[in-house]
């Protein structure tokens, strides 16, 4: 069992014992691990059925009468299939609630496109008054959920299939605040999700190429800690955004918007191309194909940034993708937005 998914169940149990307004609705997943919550909080757990739009609307109805609903199922069935229910029944009516997804991006690699969801940040960001988190460790999920679940906004908690391997202290996890994981002076990594591990490993490897990389970790996509991002990019003038999300509408777009006032910066995006991921394989296989590994990040930086010992004045901006074994240079797209 995914450790963060288990933490989700543990957090529901822990909070549910104290907060009689916490209600959990699932679309027939995680049924077993949520039994302790169901037993400890009778009448507040619903395995509603295979009808995700109705689950979302029903949750909004529960919010209307004062409960704090948590809808939990596979990401595409909440975010994509039930998008209008999120938009109208929660957001437009200004009702608070929580969407806890698993299977976002390509976590369910072998299940194919029907079970992938790499546009969730973009879709939820398109709705006013929403919040988005991507807690990639158990301590992050527990802390962020406790801080945000009853603040009257619609909040997405995207649970990844895998954790990063960095141990954060709970006091360092503040909803809406980024975490500076490493200092540096000539390149910034802005990274979200389990790729933090790869990013830190790549940072070490890239020292040999003259790169002294600052690493900014983002667990809250919205509201975004633009202050820390701007401060870092202002210093380094070079930024690589690493995210398991489609290029369009992801964290990278927010970074571009936040830093557009800084002159002469280089921007690079390591993200999922604006295409369907059609291959099969494990999460690790997809990460390798898409470049979300230590090796992929190193190759990305050395290919597009060269050596940190011999930095020319920034002249370029590009988004790069490693996709199904293509050489990175074959799939470069100009952003054209700076």
């Amino acid at each position, binding site marked *: 069992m995914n450790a963060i998914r288990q933490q989700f169940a543990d957090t529901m149990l822990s909070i549910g014992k104290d907060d009689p307004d916490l*209600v959990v609705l699932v679309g027939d997943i995680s049924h077993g691990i949520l039994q302790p919550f169901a037993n400890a909080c009778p*009448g*507040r757990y*619903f395995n*509603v*059925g295979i*009808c995700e*739009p*109705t689950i979302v*609307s*029903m*949750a*909004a*109805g*529960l*919010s*209307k*009468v*004062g*409960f704090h*609903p948590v809808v939990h199922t596979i990401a595409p069935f909440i975010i994509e299939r039930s998008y*209008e*229910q999120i938009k*109208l*029944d929660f957001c*437009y*009516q*200004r009702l608070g609630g929580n969407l806890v997804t698993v299977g976002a991006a390509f976590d369910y690699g072998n299940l194919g496109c029907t079970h992938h969801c790499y546009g969730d940040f973009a879709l939820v960001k398109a709705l006013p008054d929403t919040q988005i988190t991507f807690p990639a460790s158990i301590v992050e999920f527990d802390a962020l959920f406790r801080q945000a679940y009853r603040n009257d906004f619609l909040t997405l908690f995207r649970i990844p299939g895998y954790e990063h391997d960095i141990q954060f202290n709970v006091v360092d996890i503040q909803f809406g605040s980024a975490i500076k994981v490493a200092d540096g002076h000539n390149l910034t990594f802005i990274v979200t999700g389990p790729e933090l591990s790869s990013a830190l490993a790549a940072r070490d490897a890239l020292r040999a190429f003259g790169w002294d990389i600052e690493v900014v970790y983002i667990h809250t996509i919205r509201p975004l800690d633009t202050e820390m991002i701007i401060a870092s990019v202002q210093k380094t003038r070079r930024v690589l955004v690493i995210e398991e999300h489609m290029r369009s509408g992801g964290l990278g777009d927010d970074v571009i918007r936040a830093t557009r006032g800084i002159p002469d910066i280089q921007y690079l995006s390591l993200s999922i191309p604006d295409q369907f991921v059609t291959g099969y394989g494990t999460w690790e296989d997809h990460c390798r194909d898409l470049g979300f590994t230590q090796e992929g990040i190193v190759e990305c930086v050395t290919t597009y940034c060269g050596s940190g010992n011999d930095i020319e004045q920034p002249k370029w901006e590009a988004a790069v993708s490693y996709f199904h074994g293509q050489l990175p240079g074959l799939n470069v797209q100009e952003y054209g937005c700076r």
Partner: protein
Amino acid sequence: MNEYLRRQIVQMVMQGKDGHIPSAFSIVEILNVLYGQHLQFDSKNPDWSHRDYFILSKGHGCLALYAVLQKHGFITEEVISMFCRPGGVLGEHPDCTKVPGIEASTGSLGHGLPFAVGIAQGLRMRGMDNRVFVLVGDGECHEGTVWEAANVGTNLELGRLCVIVDWNGSGATLMPHDDLPAKWQAFGWDTTIVDGHSEKELDAAIKNIQFPVVGVPTAIIAKTVKGKGVAMLQGHGKWHHRIPNEDEFNIIMEALS
């Protein structure tokens, strides 16, 4: 048949130069009976915790709801006079963020019933005895979420939930296999057919509901006529979203006098 409320609806349309008259005309008696004889509410305190909930899921019938809300003191004549005008709060679909007494912002079909399922379940969890009524259109019953929610409502045994279906024939113009009573029965709802323009029949049907805290939810299938009350407006043609000109307005008001 209630001519007064229908005249108000037409006057709102003339002032706002927009609106769905026939869709509103088919539900006038349903709303008049609900608000006049059955719903518990306090128009001076629309959020009163013991109120019954009413959700107009077929939001484009909102003109009838506005007229009834004004009749019962939720909104003023001045508010009514600003229908679809800049600075007003009444649009072509009801908006709970703007208008006291409106429980849900609807318009896109298929949202009201699943939302009401959540409300009904939540009220029961709180130990409250409020009832929840939802008015859906027969065309709206093409939406899959209506039947998802019907299924959930039955399985949660939401006995204090009542759906009223405005069976004005709109749905059958597209899908002629339109046996709505059989469908609601098949989904486990206690189903009754009434003349949706007979306040007496509507009143009796609602009085007949037991509203058990745990039990079978109720579906009242109200046979109605789209545009009921004015021959020129009746049916499923051009009047669905048409604004009368002055001559037509006079004909309509004469028919409703």
